[in-house]
């Protein structure tokens, strides 16, 4: 057996990603240190870890974000390295520096790479310098109409003209043709002056119906960077990814190759080491793609890449952090089959996705062939109100896209969560949506009207009626002693409206 990359690693996170990292550590023979807040004593990552240390009260700012406390625990527990997961301290360059300063290993990129990709403007400039395509636009106000029109023509129509002081959709106009430029210029400036007392305007290329496509990269500390193909993350609600798949069902092979090449270029430009993701906007209309940002950490959706490439990204992170050279080349990495991830949120799709924390009274996760559940919960667990509502991820692989979709639907049908409401039924509706099935979707897919439509899908009223009749009959006919079950929920909720009155 290979020697473990580290003797002991501290996992500075909670929930499913802490469980995921602990799994990889245990498989590599690495001992694990979990940290937990007062709200998380019973959390799954604490149950699964080798040891566990309390780091503070429930609010993240007082526990999972306390870099000083976490660093102290790392030193006292004898951990050699810290894995930050995603969120929390994962993209905090100061933390990465402090870890290194303490003589420990930060399992992530060098702090300078985090910094370089940290600010949108800074990252944009670095990428332009590295020859990476970004959404064309100006970062300073434009003085004259002629100058603006010339720029618009160089970007290609349509373009967006935006008031520098604007926001919230106000003071911006999409311009489709050069003929319309003059009037748009005048009206946006006068609107801007009226609304914001500032008529400075910017120009940006408008990307219609873009897809959100990202490329996974892995780089070792010896100068080798490879990519692991793309993920299509265009199914989003409020800029939150909901369903991801790989490969993208509509990306031409040549574009995929170009995008992957650019991603490697971007990572190399900032001296990247470890696992990272370059996000792009992709225009189906023009075939162009543009750098959006780089996530300098593991992504929530990393499992779908694992399923189609066979590469365990978390194991890879650990081995790379220990200084290993990449043990495969770009040519060795193949995309086989298709994988889809559904993020299971403790949210009620029938109630405007209101958070639904609480006690999971029963849980049966799906299983069988090519069904993977990365979960942070268990039957009997009380999902706390303090943290992110994502409680698990369902990942299904198939030999082709149709197999992956039908397997996901089958797995969702098996998935039983009792006690709290989740987004599970919502996913079944998405995966059956004709536009999704056709691969025909962009980031605008989950429009308000489609959301409403998808959430309304239900053909089980007949069954619910029978179940209620039987539940009531059983209660009405059972001996009096046991008949005093207390209502757990008041009737106002029936309306499905926030704050409905009764």
């Amino acid at each position, binding site marked *: 057996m290979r020697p473990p990359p580290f003797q002991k690693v501290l996992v500075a996170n909670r929930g499913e990603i802490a469980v995921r990292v602990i799994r990889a550590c245990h498989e590599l023979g690495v001992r694990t240190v979990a940290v937990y807040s007062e709200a998380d004593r019973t959390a799954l990552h604490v149950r699964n870890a080798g040891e566990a240390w309390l780091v503070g009260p429930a609010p993240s700012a007082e526990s999972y974000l306390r870099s000083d406390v976490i660093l102290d625990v790392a030193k006292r527990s004898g951990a050699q390295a810290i894995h930050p997961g995603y969120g929390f301290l994962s993209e905090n360059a100061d933390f990465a520096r402090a870890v290194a300063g303490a003589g420990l290993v930060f399992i992530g990129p060098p702090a300078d790479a985090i910094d370089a990709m940290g600010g949108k403007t800074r990252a944009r400039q670095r990428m332009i310098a590295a020859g990476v395509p970004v959404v064309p636009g100006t970062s300073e106000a434009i003085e004259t109409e002629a100058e603006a029109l010339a720029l618009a023509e160089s970007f290609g129509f349509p373009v967006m003209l935006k008031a520098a002081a604007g926001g919230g959709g106000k003071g911006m106009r999409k311009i489709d043709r050069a003929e319309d430029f003059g009037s748009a210029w005048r009206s946006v400036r006068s609107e801007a002056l009226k609304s914001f007392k500032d008529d400075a305007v910017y120009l940006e290329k408008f990307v219609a119906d873009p897809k959100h496509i990202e490329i996974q990269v892995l780089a070792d500390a010896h100068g080798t960077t490879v990519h692991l193909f793309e993920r299509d993350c265009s199914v989003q609600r409020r800029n939150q990814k909901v369903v991801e798949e790989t490969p993208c069902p509509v990306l031409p092979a040549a574009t995929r190759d170009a995008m992957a090449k650019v991603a490697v270029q971007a990572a190399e430009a900032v001296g990247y080491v470890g696992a990272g993701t370059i996000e792009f906007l992709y225009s189906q209309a023009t075939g162009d793609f543009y750098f959006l940002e780089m996530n300098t950490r593991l992504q929530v959706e990393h499992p779908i890449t694992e399923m189609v490439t066979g590469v365990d990204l978390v194991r890879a992170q650990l081995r790379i952090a220990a200084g290993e050279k990449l043990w495969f080349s770009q040519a060795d990495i193949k995309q086989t089959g298709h994988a889809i991830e559904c993020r299971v949120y*403790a949210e*009620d799709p*029938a109630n405007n996705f*209101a*958070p*639904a*924390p*609480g006690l999971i*009274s*029963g849980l049966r996760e799906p299983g069988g062939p090519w069904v993977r559940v990365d979960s942070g919960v268990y039957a009997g667990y009380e999902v706390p*109100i*303090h*943290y*992110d*509502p994502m409680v698990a991820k369902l990942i299904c692989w198939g030999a082709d896209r149709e197999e992956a979709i039908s397997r996901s639907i089958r797995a*969702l049908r098996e*998935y*039983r*969560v*009792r*006690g709290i*409401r*989740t987004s*599970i*039924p919502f996913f*079944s509706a998405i995966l059956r949506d004709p536009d999704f099935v056709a691969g025909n979707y962009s980031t605008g897919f989950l429009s308000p009207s489609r959301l409403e439509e998808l959430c309304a899908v*239900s053909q*089980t*009223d*007949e*069954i*619910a*009626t*029978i*179940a*209620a*009749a*039987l*539940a*009531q*009959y059983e*209660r*009405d*006919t059972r001996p009096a002693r046991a008949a005093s*079950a*207390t*209502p*757990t*929920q*008041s*009737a*106002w*909720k*029936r309306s499905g*409206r*926030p*704050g*409905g*009155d*009764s």
Partner: protein
Amino acid sequence: MSTLRYTITVGGAPRSAVVSRDDDGHFRVVLDGVAHVVDLVRPTPDAFHMLIDGQSWEAGAAPREGGWLIDVLGLSAEVDVVDPRRAVVVRSAARGGKVISAQMPGRVVRVLVAVGDTVKKGQPLLVLEAMKMENELKAAGDGLVAELYVAEGQAVDLGARLVRFE
């Protein structure tokens, strides 16, 4: 065995259900005149497994005021059940006025009104937070704040009373 009659509503129009139990332990449910035979077991305390005319269905059933919260394939439905002999469903959480309840468990981060305030429809009353998401509760109509059940910083359960209007 006893035969019981209910009026059951799931979202749409009320339906009539007549339930009885056969000698072999199976249930007979006649829904708007159509009879179904149901073989019911509880594989776990919170799950019903039903063979409805041989079809396999599973449901979660939790009691709630006025009926049941029924979960089929992950879809929760609030089902009202009325026993016509009693012909009454108590649905009001509080007498004398309208009560706003918490539509999610969480923490009250801000209370924006005080007892005695007159509020207009749509006016924000308080802000609840759960899972990093803030949710503003608005008045469903014009009224007078008669009672406040919660204070800032307080944790509340799903369905907890927050504000009463008059």
